[in-house]
């Protein structure tokens, strides 16, 4: 039920963004369509179940987005500097990190956030280990790499998805 209603709300938001209006004659067909699609996709997308709907979780979602965007910009400046330096200062390698997150959706968000930030790219995910290709390896043991790469996002996602 929770799953169904979150899917419905997400689809309604998509519909409103697409149509860019709040008028009733647009909302009603949208609601019907969103209802049918949620019914159809309900058994498939059980990803939203772990989401917590407390005010604290909402606040942390915004903090997570903020941290993520700052990191995104920093990462880009870093990569741009490396690309434009004539000697190409890279030090690549694949490192292993551990995460404690259980929820699938949170793990996906974590992997996507890692892929989008400083010189890191998720290559493979096995149980609790993420294998990450770094453009500049600082620390190749598991704890050190986890602290560098994962912790800064994990602490927010842990609050949101438990």
């Amino acid at each position, binding site marked *: 039920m929770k799953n169904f209603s979150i899917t419905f709300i997400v689809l309604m938001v998509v519909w409103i963004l697409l149509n860019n209006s709040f008028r009733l*004659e647009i909302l009603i067909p949208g609601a019907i369509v969103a209802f049918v*699609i949620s019914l159809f996709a309900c058994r498939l997308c059980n990803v939203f179940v772990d989401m917590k709907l407390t005010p604290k979780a909402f606040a942390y979602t915004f903090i997570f987005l903020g941290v993520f965007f700052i990191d995104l910009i920093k990462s880009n400046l870093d990569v741009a500097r490396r690309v434009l330096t004539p000697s190409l200062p890279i030090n690549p390698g694949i490192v292993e990190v551990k995460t404690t997150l259980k929820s699938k959706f949170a793990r996906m968000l974590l992997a996507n956030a890692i892929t989008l930030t400083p010189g890191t790219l998720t290559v493979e995910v096995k149980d609790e280990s993420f294998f990450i290709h770094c453009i500049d390896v600082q620390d190749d043991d598991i704890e050190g790499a986890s602290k560098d790469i994962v912790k800064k996002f994990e602490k927010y996602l842990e609050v949101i998805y438990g």
Partner: protein
Amino acid sequence: MKNIFIIIIIAAFGVMLYPLFEDFSGNDELSELASFYAQKENVEKVNSANLVTAVVVTYRGLDTLGEVTILFLAAAIIAFSLRKHSVERDLRRNSEIFKTASKVLIPIIMMVGVYIFMNGHLSPGGGFQGGAVLASAVILMLLAFPNIPFNSKLFAYTESISGLVFVGLAAIGALIGSGYLDNAILPLGTFGELLSAGAIPVIYSFVGLKVGAELSNILNEFQSVQSDN
């Protein structure tokens, strides 16, 4: 008995389509949109001798971009579907990230498909394009979860019912409107809104459903043939 029935149906279609033939009169004046494209300055700006080419390639060139991508995708999917079955196939699992992401994306893609065919009268989309986007959600589903049980009867029913409704609406147009596929059976509304242009959004919706169900059915057939081998 069957033959007589077919003859009756053909005769009925003939009666329905006859007004089209009778009322036809050549129209010498261009509509507002057509005259914009046909204006001398606009044709000269493109510097093409052929007016139709100028419109299709220059003004509507972005559609071609989409079509080219669709072609690329189609080639890739044919390679996927007609490939010989290999032992490795079942064993290398999909990555978990991809599975989770497709669970989130599938409903959103379906919503976009519905938006495209419901707004067919306002935007470059339409029934066919929207249906193709719906089917691409199904492709994503087949890619992410190859072993999911698939209800092919659902697609068959959707397809036949929307086909029936489409023909039925067209026939109603012929009966109470002024011709086959006439859109004046519903209020026309004001230009530029979702619920306008009479029956066009409704007809487009059913065309979209039909195309989506058909393409999904084709994909599903490919998939099941492939797993039998």
